[in-house]
């Protein structure tokens, strides 16, 4: 008896299957730990609720709005924020640190697959679970904080697509950062600087209109605002058609930059890898 020859599929089809399988694993795992997932999510929701309360307080004091944003619009901004943040959860550089320090990467390198593809698929699969768990939270927040938003159908469509764009940009950037752990085992300081920059330059802390002009100018040159500010504004900000479609193009540009960066860094990084035992 001879073993059946391996069935050959096209590379694209093969890659697609990998994504689907990784996603299935993620869904099964995350449903198993739904209580843990919920605690994690509630801790995360605290962040925008705090910003929201603070800015609603300021808006109330200033006669209803700050820099043209009303209390209801702040509510819409930060509630949509919670969804965008959940979609934006990706494999962190700390994960890379552990992977390399403990030699887990050795097994991954044996597979005929770029490790970052596994991460992309796994975290993408987590998302349906996350969105399901998020719905009651969003409902509750909407009940309490009275958001005001009236997006056009095009805005909704662009929002949906931009979520995927935001996920990819943030994944690719954090993967590149994670690869630093091939050189040092302490990625913490770099990652914290990255997160601080993201807070200030992405719209994660406050809508970018509230930032001084020079900060907005810096933000325009960097990828951060396409991961938070743009998706949120697409839904709540009454952007024009050009702004909406232009934003998607900008996301596409940063996805391309991120992909190239990750591949280039990987080529140099993987040469430095050495594992002790297996």
């Amino acid at each position, binding site marked *: 008896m001879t073993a059946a020859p391996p069935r050959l599929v096209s590379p694209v089809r093969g890659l697609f299957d990998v994504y689907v399988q990784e996603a299935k694993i993620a869904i099964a795992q995350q449903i198993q*730990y739904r*209580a*843990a*997932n919920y*605690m*994690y999510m*509630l*801790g*995360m*929701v*605290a*962040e925008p*609720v*705090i910003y929201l*309360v*603070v800015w609603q*307080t*300021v808006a109330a*004091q*200033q006669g209803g709005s*700050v*820099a043209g944003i009303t209390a209801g619009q702040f509510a819409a901004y930060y509630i949509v924020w919670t969804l965008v943040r959940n979609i934006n959860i990706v494999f962190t550089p700390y994960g890379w640190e552990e992977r390399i320090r403990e030699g887990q990467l050795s097994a991954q390198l044996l597979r005929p697959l770029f490790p970052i593809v596994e991460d992309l698929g796994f975290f993408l699969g987590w998302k349906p679970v996350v969105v399901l768990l998020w719905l009651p939270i969003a409902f509750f927040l909407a009940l*309490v904080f009275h958001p005001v938003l009236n997006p056009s159908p095009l805005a909704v469509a662009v929002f949906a697509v931009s979520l995927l764009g935001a996920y990819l940009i943030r994944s690719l950037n954090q993967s590149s950062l994670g690869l630093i752990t091939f050189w040092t085992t*302490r990625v*913490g*300081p770099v990652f*914290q*600087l990255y997160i*601080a920059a993201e*807070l*200030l330059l992405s719209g994660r*802390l*406050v809508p970018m209109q*509230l*930032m*001084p002009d020079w900060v907005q100018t810096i933000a325009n040159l960097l990828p951060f605002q396409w991961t938070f500010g743009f998706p949120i504004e697409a839904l709540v900000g009454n952007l024009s058609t050009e702004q909406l479609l232009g934003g998607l193009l900008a996301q596409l540009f940063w996805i391309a930059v991120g992909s190239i960066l990750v591949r280039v860094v990987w080529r140099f990084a993987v040469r430095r890898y050495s594992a002790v035992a297996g």
Partner: protein
Amino acid sequence: MRPIRLAWLFFRIGALNDLQYRANFWLQLLQSAIQLGTGLAVLGLIFSQTPALNGWTGPELLAVMGVHILMGGVIGTVIRPSMERLRSDIREGKFDFVLTKPEDVQVLSSVREIRIWQAVDILVGFVVLGIAIGQLQASLGAIEAVAFGVALLIGALMIYSFWLIVTTVAFWIVRIDEIAELFEGLYQSGRWPVTIYPGWLRASLTFLVPIAFAVTVPAQALTQRLTPDTLALAAAFGVVALVVSRAFFRIGLRRYSGASA
């Protein structure tokens, strides 16, 4: 006095241990600086739009931030490390080693781990407080200083009780790692006086997760807002929290069956 001697002993062991890793001091300093920087940026943004937030002026909110950083340092240095160790020991069955020692189990579980570099936040908190007090119009009398110290101590004991209760849940539910994340998230709310939050949230942040008592009340003492009634309420609630957490811990202890071979 025995608990204090025990705590001091573990503090020395922890310090000796951490002193081996001096680079961690600089990492902690960088982390504290980043947090301070973003905190100040937010204050700057808010006060570029409005002269006062719900009656709190810039220097007063800076004082709140100072207390928040200071208390965060206390939690990170002495409370959270021991509680996380307790949690993982229960899960892995290593808790046997604590039970077999001839000391009070709760005391021993609560002082075993110290992270001295986290104390950088305590220093940063005091510096921020000093600057804030310098900017405040009203001068700070001896009574306010004592009230501040008392409020801070009560607040720390309440946060400890909270962590103990939450960690005790590990006797029933094994995977509660995310509770630390949940607390970190909620603790960020203490950066602002709890009076700005809507009623249901304010009540939760006072009696469910005692962030109001840990941060806002000490800050009130510094800004002439603290009434004797509030301080008395804090003291009473603090005693209740300590008693309840100890009782709950003992109930949880009975559930422990050990997991080692």
